[in-house]
């Protein structure tokens, strides 16, 4: 019958050769017939999944909780205690902290609650301190930190407003370096000094790859005769030590994620017995008063999980327990009201037979 070809009387020769075809290639892929696994959540599987989650989560939670509980921590909040008691208002405290002439040494007595095994980590904890603020985070020049004067002026654009001092580039530039934390701690036990090891407190990758053999220059916190203190942000730097060895700076410049954060100050490499009286001498220089930030000194041992934090343990135990309960609940529902899987009499059109 109809061959589908045009019945042209004028151009009978123009029929297409039959081997030219537009038919798509047929394969398991194009026909969507690839072998496939079709998962089906049968009641059995569901119960198994819940139970497995519970069985995995609860032991992890217990282990995490035990690890957290094994950590011994001493926390001492000192920002108020280290100001003479006659400075009562916040303005007065700001004035006190900005006064360069006074000696701000402060002594705190800490009691070791439990036996603390070395190494004991010394942290300072700041609160309400937004190191993660967008402008603060960006206010640095990684090129300058690595290459020093090799970095061009353009490379330090990001450091504004702490890019230049008297038209000379600041090394290291930027708000982060400028606001370097400058409280210092030293410890004694009954008059005997307890050494704090400040080596190796920063990340190796930072020391070797992000900070170069660069010496500080023109750094505002180092300026002499800076009596009114208007340009002092924080700690000065040792001009004779390259940046990649100034680990306090390296630690500080790995900006914290959250407004409450700890930074590693050093390590005490000896065990502390329970009930030992530890005297901490604090140089209280850093101004957190103008933004009502808290300062805490933290001494902590460590576990495989890090510091003291019950959250993970509690969360794991909770999720595990909920999961087991859900599994049981589901088991009961399934037992009381079983619905045979794939029973076609449950199909809607099989349930209400047509009335016609």
């Amino acid at each position, binding site marked *: 019958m109809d061959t589908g070809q045009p019945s042209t009387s004028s151009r009978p020769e123009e029929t297409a050769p039959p081997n030219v075809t537009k038919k798509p290639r047929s394969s398991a892929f194009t026909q969507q017939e690839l072998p496939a696994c079709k998962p089906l959540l049968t009641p059995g599987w569901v119960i198994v999944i819940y139970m497995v989650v519970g069985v995995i989560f609860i032991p992890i939670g217990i282990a995490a909780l035990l690890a957290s509980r094994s950590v011994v921590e001493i926390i001492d909040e000192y920002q108020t205690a280290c100001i003479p008691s006659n400075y009562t208002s916040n303005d007065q405290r700001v004035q006190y902290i900005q006064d360069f002439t006074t000696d701000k040494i402060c002594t705190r007595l800490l009691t070791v609650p439990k036996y603390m095994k070395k190494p004991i980590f010394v942290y300072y904890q700041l609160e309400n301190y937004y190191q993660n603020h967008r402008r603060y985070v960006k206010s640095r020049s990684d090129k300058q930190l690595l290459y020093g004067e090799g970095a061009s002026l353009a490379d330090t654009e990001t450091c504004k407003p702490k890019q230049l001092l008297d038209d000379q580039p600041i090394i290291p530039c930027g708000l982060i370096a400028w606001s370097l934390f400058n409280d210092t701690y030293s410890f004694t036990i009954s008059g005997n000094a307890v050494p704090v090891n400040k080596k190796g407190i920063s990340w190796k990758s930072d020391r070797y790859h992000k900070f170069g053999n660069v010496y500080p220059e023109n750094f505002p916190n180092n300026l002499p005769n800076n009596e009114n203190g208007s340009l002092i942000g924080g700690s000065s730097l040792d001009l004779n030590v390259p940046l990649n060895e100034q680990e306090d700076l390296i630690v500080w410049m790995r900006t914290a994620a959250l407004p409450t954060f700890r930074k590693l100050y050093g390590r005490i490499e000896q065990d502390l017995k329970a009930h030992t009286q530890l005297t901490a001498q604090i140089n209280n220089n850093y101004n957190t008063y103008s933004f009502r930030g808290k300062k805490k000194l933290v001494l902590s041992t460590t576990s495989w999980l890090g510091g003291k934090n019950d959250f993970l343990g509690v969360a794991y135990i909770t999720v595990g327990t909920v999961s087991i309960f*859900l599994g049981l609940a589901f088991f009961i529902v399934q037992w009381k009201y079983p619905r045979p899987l794939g029973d076609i009499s449950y199909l809607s059109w099989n349930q209400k037979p047509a009335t016609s």
Partner: protein
Amino acid sequence: MVHDYLLTLAACNTVVPTKIKLTSSGNLEMEVAIAADEEIALVEYQGESPDEQALVAAAASYGYTLVERTSNYIVINVLGQRMTFELLGMHEFDSIRKCMSVIVKCPNGQVKVLVKGADSALLKKISLSEKTTHIAGERQAQVLFDTQMHLDMYSNKGLRTLVVGVRELSDSEFTNWQQLYAKANASVSERATLLQEAAQAVENDLILLGATGIEDKLQDGVPETISTLRNAGIKVWVLTGDKQETAISIGFSCALLTHDMKQIIINASDKQQCHDAIKAAKEAYVQVDNRHRMFRASGRSYDFATELPGGPEKVTELSNASLSRPFSQRMKLDSFRSINSSRADSGRSRHGRLLALIIDGNSLVHALDKDLEQELFDLATACQVVICCRVAPLQKAGIVSLVKRKSKEMTLAIGDGANDVSMIQMADVGVGISGQEGRQAVLASDFALGQFRFLQRLLLIHGHLNYRRLGYMVLYNFYRNAVLVMLLFWYTLYTAFSTSPAITQWSLVLYSVIYTSVPTIAVAIMDRNLSPQTLLKYPGLYKSGQENESYSKLLFWLTMLDTLWQSLVLFYAPYLTFRHSTIDIWSIGSIWIISVVILVNLHLAMDVEHYTWITHLAIWGSIVATYICLIVLDLLTDDDSLVYYGTIFNIAGTANYWLDIFLIIVTALLPRFVLKIVKQKIWPSDVDIAREEEIRKG
């Protein structure tokens, strides 16, 4: 008379005989046949309409073989004897005259007008007077009566009918016509009108020769397809140009109409009648009050088939047809919502019987008017089946547009002829069947099919799967992007509202490009909840689309609620873990980005219902690719990336990192998992049950 009858069939058309020969290269070549060819075995007729081809072929089988056609003459092999007819003129078919004619000069010098056309038009032009026909009037009347009987019989069988007539022209008449014809052909501006005038001059006082009935075979599987579609909750409306009787018998033969249905036939000639008829039908069948009200419509030729208690129905008399054409169908995809008030009862009268509305083109002219269309729509949607016959192409589009305007349903139009083009273009989904009626419908359509029965695969399988995939992907993509953005937002609350991102700029860019894109594509293309076999076995599964199972406002907001929960888990698990720690901004960002990527990929993995190796590769590969990207990004030493250097190596070395990721994934997915199981256990959808059955059995 038989001679003239067959002659008309052979001559009165536009068919061109073509000769097919096998060339040495194996190709089939066609060439217009000429009378000089001795070899006439392989003649094939090429014409505009398959009906004409059929008529010419029929004439040929009775010994009247059309051998050659040129613009000047026609050669017909009459019972082995080759006769040449001079072609004096041709009036092509138009929809106003509804007939075509050729004027030929027979070998014996007689000039004859050979006419064939629709019965409604042609029977009016038959002359019964002896004077013009030279045949006894009684005999003429007898022929007319017989022919009409045959016509009724044919159309009840679902055949398409034509009437054939002839007229001999006297010299004066011929000259008169020739002038008109020449003038019309020479005219530039009013050619069509003048040609019509010329045609009308000769197409009258015809001698009735007989009628033809052409059977248009149903394609394979049409009744099955239609009943499948109706089981799938799709309302089927037929819009056809055929006569009412033909349409009804086609309706029966393709299982659209059944004998227990109540037929509402509307066949009105003017507006008032039409209005009354629709109103009355609505009152009688659609509304619950006015019980047992009987009425008689004032339509010209058909009464309403009202239900007489206990009595036989008029409609049953019309109903023993077997074969016809069901091509010009229009499917109405009823979405569940709009007929919610009467879903179970939809299409049933108050007596619990199914309703069928049959309305003709003349009535539709009025019914589609602004003031009547609401009534028509109400009546039609109350019926299970609607058949519109004698409909003009534009009316087809008008009906589609009526449904589109008045309801929220999706409409699908399927047709094979050029007269279906406007409705195919008007409907939400246009499907063209490529067949003997040319490619007009296919060219205008969204989907082209080879046969009508493929429609069930198109809708039940591809329609179902695409609906599920689309619905799921819309929800998933909202989720995928919202969960990351919400995570960033929660962090902003802890950065003094400074919008500083913990996640590296590159990762934010790559999140949509690499980390989570490929599984979306793989699943959107390949996921499949049910096999084609199951989908065809249970057409009712198609209703999952009508019932908005895969996408609805409720699902959207549930997904958003889930997104909120997941983003909170994502943010607060690391926050609470590290809130008094030395964690730096890039490390916590590193945990967040890997957690969110694993989470959204596992979320998808949990919902995938058909795992091929490609799906596996896409999902697990994405997570691996993300790790590779994160490692590479933390090794870059260019100016902008140096700040991130080495982050992942330090943080991934801690137990907290891994415990956090594990906790986030399980905790974030838990509510979704619970909801999924509870829904499947307590409120299983048909799709759920069919899937269980499919997997259990095979």
